């Protein structure tokens, strides 16, 4: 089977989420990549070095800047004329583009797969990860998004893919990029961090969240996450949210501070290797999944912990 993996990139660099998608695709067969964007020669060269990659299709055109689905999907559909499966990471861009491709190919998408069982059978999470479905597709071509935490990352070097330019399918004139507020990260990225410290509603407000959670995270070299309640209340921006409808993470250690453990939150972090929970309510559901729990007032515990570490 020939697969086409959509390469996610930003600021001229390949994003790690691509590497898990490559691993999933390699279980299906030959891996080809698509790098689409404006001024992406550098990304293409980087992509060609990914272990196990065959061809790298490069579409260099302003129409593909910012990964607008209206423009990128027709390009992918054209390339799918000679590929059997389209694979994208289940990132916000991947989730935006892949279903548009699927419908244009008249295919049901396999969203957020956890494993490749065979060429037509996959597992995927449903009901906030409370039910893992094994799904067999009857579609002739496959469209798949891949959960990043479920697959090893392919090695970033060792490969020697050939680079091939593809012609642009142009700007469809339906949409345009108007701007972004992308937070500058001073800490590791949530989806690739080894350690995460997350705060919940209990953190009261933005300044209290920062003053309590950030020093502990910095001590641990950790990324910072949050529950929906903390994000909704404006303590931290939306990209901190961990959960069913936020980011899916699986670090070595996840520290949940003042988070109750609603199923929607657990959906995003219960595959973490070790879970540590700090909560004043000893019956909080988070303790049902925590490996190590400490019952008490976080405003006493967290500063003391930060100090003693």
């Amino acid at each position, binding site marked *: 089977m020939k697969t086409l993996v959509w390469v996610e990139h930003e600021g001229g660099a390949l994003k790690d989420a691509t590497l898990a998608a490559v691993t999933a695709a390699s279980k299906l067969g030959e891996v080809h990549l698509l790098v689409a964007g404006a001024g992406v020669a550098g990304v293409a060269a980087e992509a060609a070095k990914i272990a196990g990659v065959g061809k790298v299709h490069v579409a260099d055109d302003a129409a593909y800047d910012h990964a607008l689905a209206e423009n990128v999907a027709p390009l992918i559909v054209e390339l799918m004329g000679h590929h059997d499966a389209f694979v994208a990471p289940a990132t916000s861009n991947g*989730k935006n583009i892949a279903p548009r491709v699927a419908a244009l190919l008249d295919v049901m998408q396999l969203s957020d797969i956890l494993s490749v069982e065979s060429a037509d059978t996959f597992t995927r999470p449903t009901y906030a990860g409370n039910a893992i479905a094994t799904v067999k597709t009857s579609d002739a071509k496959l469209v798949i998004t891949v959960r990043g935490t479920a697959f090893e990352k392919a090695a970033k070097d060792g490969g020697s893919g050939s680079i091939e330019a593809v012609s642009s399918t142009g700007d469809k004139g*339906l*949409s345009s990029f108007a701007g972004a507020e*992308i*937070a500058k990260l001073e800490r590791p990225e949530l989806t690739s961090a080894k350690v995460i410290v997350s705060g919940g509603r209990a953190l009261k407000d933005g300044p209290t969240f920062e003053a309590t959670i950030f020093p502990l995270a910095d001590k641990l070299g950790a990324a910072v996450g949050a529950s*929906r309640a903390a994000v909704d209340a404006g303590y931290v921006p939306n*990209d901190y949210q961990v959960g069913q409808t936020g980011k899916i993470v699986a670090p070595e250690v996840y520290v949940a501070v003042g988070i109750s453990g609603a199923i929607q939150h657990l959906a995003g972090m219960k595959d973490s290797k070790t879970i540590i929970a700090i909560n004043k309510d000893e019956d909080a559901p988070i303790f049902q999944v925590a490996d190590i729990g400490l019952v008490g007032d976080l405003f006493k515990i967290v500063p003391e912990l930060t100090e003693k570490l």
Partner: protein
Amino acid sequence: MKLLVPVKRVIDYNVKPRVKADGSGVDLSNVKMSMNPFDEIAVEEAIRLKEKGVATEIVAVSVGPAKAQETLRTALAMGADRAILIESDAEVEPLAVAKLLAKVAAEETPGMVILGKQAIDDDSNQTGQMLAALLGWSQGTFASKVEVSGDAVAVTREVDGGLETVNLKLPAIVTTDLRLNEPRYASLPNIMKAKSKPLAQKKPEDYGVDIAPRHTTLKVEEPPKRSAGIKVADVDELVAKMKALGVAA
């Protein structure tokens, strides 16, 4: 302009889903069912656009069993003007839902279709994007802000790194994220009024859409269970455990 709002009847988000012992699916008998939370946000957004004078009429659509009427009545009670039920007892996959919605859109010619970004049962996150593809329309997914001006709409989207704004040509597809708005509760008088609002009953055949599934679910399992671990007595003990894990020097 007219707005179309697809709403799905799903397990209530407060209920913990239980996998059936025979692995055939999730047990939905005697379980509280509600409108998909993201679709409530979609209905709310539509109502606000009508209140602002941007929209003139709101049509709610649901594909599902006869009981999905209740979900549509909820949308009507919140403020939708009329509803369409496309009745099917069989489960209808996102691709087929999108095809049905494309037919409804062709009949109704809305200026926007506002959907939820994701149904909390199948967690597919694909119907809106598919509908946009089938209609050849623009798409603003995971919206946290929607601003219509003239024949365009600016949609601010929740993306992995933060927020992004795109300008879309109308007609457009919008899918809602959690922070777009806070849905209102329907008042008792409005619930009463909703009972007499029009609700059309259709079947997939009426639209000539083949809803045969492409996917077969071979089995459904519970995820590997995590068992509760230990509780430590104080911070010193926690520090020792964290050092043992190698997360602290």
